[in-house]
């Protein structure tokens, strides 16, 4: 994941924070167009997918997904295209070898579909953890980690971890486990955190370049808060 140092300045974030503090509606279009911090921009972008579908043609979306000025614009356009193309429903029809090949080439959606198709084999925490340990593919590690996050998170009948355990894991060595922890932390925070939008944005600023999966966890919470 490329990162632009300018994002660290977070100037736009401060403006957004001010909006929030004043109790004004969050301007998601403004955030996604101007925000340089990837996770904040993405959180806004993830709330604009349906709007992008309504506002742009496929050609425009394709262009935005490739050349959008911010991470959030690219993500919103990419997810809009994904949805228009049938989303995971279309991908799970492909055979696993093809999915694996696409995943190896860096296609995260293909990796997600591969893990989705194999979820019957991934019913135990230990099995998913072992699969993460065995894979050399980042996309598969992320897909498996996202699944594992469901086991680690609140409400899970097996494998649930405490928030403290997850905070350790999210900065650990394994990409898959970090993603799992991030997924579960987001759930914990959505259900139990009283952090405000400015506080989450500030938290992202503090970790974005150092602990990307922890920032990802905050991004999940921010996406939710922006949606309210």
């Amino acid at each position, binding site marked *: 994941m490329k990162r632009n140092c300018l994002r660290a300045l977070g100037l736009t974030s401060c403006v957004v924070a001010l909006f929030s503090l004043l109790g004004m509606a969050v301007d998601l279009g403004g955030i996604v167009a101007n925000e340089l911090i990837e996770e904040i921009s993405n959180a806004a972008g993830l709330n604009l997918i349906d709007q992008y579908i309504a506002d742009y043609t496929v050609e425009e979306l394709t262009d935005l997904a490739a050349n959008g000025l911010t991470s959030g614009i690219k993500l919103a356009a990419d997810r809009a295209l994904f949805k228009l193309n049938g989303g995971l*429903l279309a991908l*799970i029809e492909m055979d696993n070898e093809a999915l694996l090949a696409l995943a190896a080439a860096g296609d995260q959606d293909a990796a997600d579909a591969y893990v989705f198709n194999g*979820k*019957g084999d991934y019913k135990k925490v230990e099995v998913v953890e072992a699969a993460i340990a065995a894979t050399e593919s980042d996309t598969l590690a992320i897909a498996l980690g996202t699944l594992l996050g469901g086991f680690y998170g609140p409400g899970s009948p097996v494998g649930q971890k405490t928030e403290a355990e997850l905070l350790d894991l999210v900065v650990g060595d394994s990409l898959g486990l970090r993603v799992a922890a991030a997924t579960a932390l987001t759930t914990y925070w959505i259900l139990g955190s009283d952090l405000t939008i400015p506080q989450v944005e500030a938290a992202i600023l503090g970790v974005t370049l150092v602990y990307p999966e922890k920032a990802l966890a905050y991004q999940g919470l921010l*996406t*939710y808060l922006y949606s309210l």
Partner: protein
Amino acid sequence: MKNALILASLLVLTSLVVFGQGYDEQPADSLVYPIGVAGTVYEDMELGVRGGTLTYASIEDPKGWNNHTAHETSTTAFTNRMLRGLVRNDHISLAIEPDLAKSWEISDDSLVITFHLREGILWSDGTPITADDVLFTFNDVILNTDVDCNSRDGMLLPDDTYPVCEKVDDYTVTFTMSTIFRPALNQLGFNIMPKHKLAQYVHKLNPAVPVGTFNETWTLDMDLTELVGCGPFIVTDYQPNVSVTMSRNPYYYAYDPAGTQLPYYDSEVTAIVTNSDVSMLKFRNGEIDVYGLRAEDIAILLPEGARKGFQVLISDAPAFGTTWFLVNMDIGLAEGTDAEKREVYRNVKFREAMAHCIDKETMVRNVFNGLAGAQWSPVSVPSPFYAGRDYYGGPITENNAVAFEYDPAKAVSLLDEIGVVDADGDGWRDLPSGDPLTIEINTNDNTIRTASCLILVDDWRAIGVNATFQVVDFNTLVDRLFGASGDFIYLGLTGGNEPNSGANVYNSCGSLHAYRYSACDEPDEIDLRIDELLGLGAGTFDLDEAFGYYTEYQQLLSRQLGYIYTVVPTFQYGYYDYVGNAFKSQPDRTPSRYTGLLGELCFDKRL
């Protein structure tokens, strides 16, 4: 999405035109669900508002709209929403409650049940519902051998006769039985069908139509405006492989305490999808409102619920049915072999040892992904007659459970006590004579059962019992079950509300009394008492009295350890937060499609 909403609105408008405008005012005899009323099982539910469309998914198309010729749940899932019976099992408590009948009386000799129908309630086309519809459905459809009716067997009384249904007046019918049989009340909850629409298709009433015409009535290709029902919804549109739309019945007779006519939703749309994965993805995408989860879905959906605004409800209430292994106490009896093994198997301390070696916790965790509960009783946990509900966190009753906790040390002690010890030092326990004891447990090719058996065998071997496990095909397994030729067998049985429905299994002469068929000729005191309790429980209309009999029945069977119960899966489902009252579901149904959700009580909170 907008198009779908517009379509749904149009359908509702169409249905109003076809059905009429509904009651001018709430009928005096309407059924009122005590939604939000303290002290009732509905007290934690909310009063709703009318409007909106509730969406589900199903992996099967219906095969018709004729309730009494349907043999598959893909059809009855819809017909059960179009039709109602005289009585119903309450959605939540499962107790028998009035439905189309507002009350009933049972004669002093318990042989005659008199039902009083609600007056002033109408079919969806505005025609009054009367005793003629009840007689038509029972006498001319269910008991009519020209009709390929699925529910006839359920009406058969223990003496191989059927109840006699007679009309007293337009709103009173009687069912007369030749023998006392309380479960008959349950069976009399059959769906009533409209005589004015269907009598013309029954040969005995209209000789102009050929025999069997009724079986070809209300098929998928019919004009749906001809469908008439008395339930909350009526099918108004069907697109094969795409969807079924049901619209509110304007003459449904149920209301909430605020006087709002049910159902709350204007319509229910069931999307027909190719498989459960598609259902799951549609739920994730917000295209359907409710989804019955599989264990493998939980980890995917749990983290998304909070973000997307849906709940993943993981019930701690086990589903209906039982899962068990049996110890064949008649092993070798027919062949004149295995006398000592048989004697050991018939020693209850041996069976207790085996029961103490069932690691139900590991089964629940490893086989069911945590979504199951320990089981001890032959009666399904959701049954109102289940006597150990507190075992699952009640308390609804006192602790009546006879639970054999996982205790290998206790098992070792019991085996030592009866002389099943390792006589020759080979590491395996032997029969008291010193002859080797080997056990083979069989099940069919079912991943859940196979995994459960592996856990059992591991634990038994760990205490020195030389147990092995073998998968056999289902028919072979059933042959062994009925032929008393197996050793240990691992299987399951379906279950229902009424314990007496298990008489074919637990009565000493039952056709599935597979752990000891010889009990029919040589019953011991416990067998005799179990037989007696089954009869006593079914032979009284006093439910408290029946519960008392069935409690003792469950305790005796649990101690007898013929069928040794293991674990039973729970059920779980997901629903979006905006579906009011969806947190509560009907425990004897699976919400994977539509039958488990209390659809007529759900409402759209966004309105």
